């Protein structure tokens, strides 16, 4: 069982390397994170906070946009793309269970994402350290950022698998993936913001809004990372995030874990029902 899962995972990793997916994702992450680290935090240089920590705060916002996009682009092809190419028929005619197949895909894609994140963000961290503007304590923040980014990626991989199992055409799955990205990363926040602006001190702001943030993995990710940065009050207007919340910020982390588990289970159920 394990060997079959690893076979699928290894295949995905190999394809990720061959078609330069990993390279592209790494370059994008490295480019944007270096730009943010070197240009974006220049005004904050005199604050006396570790430059690495400030960078982590901006990278958290970067991750919210890029990681879901990369994960969805990796995942939308997983089921319906293989149906279109006929390879899923062959794979499923082998003695492998559908759940093993899905787990293999998830592990493989997670590795692709992890490599890209570690290499892309790692480059930025290395640059900051060699410039002497970062300290080792900032590295812990950095590690947390990468780890939670991977978790955020798994959430969106799972969304991609669900969409890929629900559609029969690759084009439809791609469109659905982009729509999911817009919905979770852009529109959800806009809607919340709109409701908040309309009534800044009402029931919504105090009782609905914080939990609404928990439900969206992209928001939960950002909340957890910013709250976990001890220096958050010094970073770009996010003063006292954790004090204003009606719950412990770790709940945001648990919410990410739960989201990934629930949506992966949903995609496992869906993939059992499809006829390749």
């Amino acid at each position, binding site marked *: 069982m394990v*060997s*079959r899962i690893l*076979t*699928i995972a290894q*295949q995905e990793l*190999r*394809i990720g390397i*061959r*078609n330069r997916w990993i390279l592209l994702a790494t370059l994008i992450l490295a480019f944007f994170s270096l730009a943010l680290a070197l240009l974006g935090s220049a005004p904050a240089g005199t604050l006396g906070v570790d430059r690495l920590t400030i960078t982590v705060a901006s990278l958290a916002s970067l991750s919210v946009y890029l990681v879901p996009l990369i994960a969805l682009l990796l995942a939308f092809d997983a089921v319906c793309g293989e149906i279109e*190419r*006929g*390879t899923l*028929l*062959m*794979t*499923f*005619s*082998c*003695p*492998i269970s559908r759940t093993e197949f899905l787990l293999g895909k998830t592990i493989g894609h997670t590795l692709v994402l992890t490599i890209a994140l570690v290499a892309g963000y790692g480059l930025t961290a290395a640059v900051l350290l060699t410039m002497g503007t970062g300290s080792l304590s900032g590295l812990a923040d950095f590690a947390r950022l990468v780890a939670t980014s991977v978790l955020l990626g798994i959430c969106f991989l799972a969304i991609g698998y669900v969409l890929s199992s629900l559609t029969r055409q690759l084009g439809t799955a791609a469109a659905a993936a982009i729509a999911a990205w817009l919905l979770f990363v852009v529109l959800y926040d806009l809607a919340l913001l709109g409701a908040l602006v309309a009534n800044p001190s009402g029931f919504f702001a105090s009782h609905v809004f914080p939990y609404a943030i928990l439900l969206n993995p992209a928001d939960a990710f950002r909340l957890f990372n910013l709250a976990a940065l001890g220096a958050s009050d010094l970073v770009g207007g996010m003063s006292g995030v954790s004090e204003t919340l009606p719950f412990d910020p770790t709940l945001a982390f648990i919410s990410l874990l739960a989201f990934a588990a629930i949506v992966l289970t949903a995609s496992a159920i869906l993939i059992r029902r499809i*006829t*390749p």
Partner: protein
Amino acid sequence: MTNSTLSVQSLTKRFKGNIAVDRVSFELKPGERVALLGHNGAGKTTLFKMVLGFLRRDSGDVSVLGCAPGSNPARQGTAYLPESVAFSSALTGEEVIRFYARLKGEPSARSLELLEQVGLADASKRRVGTYSKGMRQRLGLAQALIGNPKLVLLDEPTTGLDPISRQNVYQLIGEIAQKGATVLLSSHALTELEARTDRILILSKGQLVADDELGKLRAQAGLPIRLKVWTKPGAAQEVAAQLGAGRMNGRSVELDCGTDDKVRKLSAISALGNLVEDVDVHPPSLDDVYRHFSNTVQKEA
């Protein structure tokens, strides 16, 4: 339980009121090479998918190697090559075979020898993206041979191949059957199947309309042998009159006759002496036999 590799009993599948497979029954024995013929949409792929356990049947029974379709022992003994499969073009032939060998739990060293058997040894380190269509089909066949399966299902394995690649495919199919595996292949290219399969199943509108050896199907169909007599210029009319029947066609006369009547007709033709320049004898081809069996169902319907 009999020793059949695949047993299908009055299998039926409906899609939204459309009958795709209609009370189909047949048995396949070890070592048989069987062709499943049918027009596009006759239900060939649907039948395969039910045998593999991908599609649920509405009624009837399927038993693969004595087990339920889609169960682990059934999948272990079965190999399948879908119609027009596209392997990831970023992988090499060797990596594709290793991948499927590991999924089937077979040692990859032995599976890699299959690449030699299908003539891809030299290309094994090249990416599939650089392969020709024939090479990809052979790679698919090598995949289907991993682990000496007892039942090999090939969905249109020769579609889109040139004649030489097609011959290669049939040669391989012969080798597989010699090892004792049952090969069931679907096709709509009919004439190429002659002398390459032991038995022919004809599916038409979901119904099994024929199940026999080609020779016996020919006899059952009772199709006439067509004689084409080439005459000297201007003599067509006279020849037609002398032979008593036939359609005239410029310089030739065509007439049909039964198997028992053939020799008598031919001697009548040779008696015409130098009025005749040449004679072509056309026994009914597989295409004719196939058309005969598919048409009978359509007339009944």
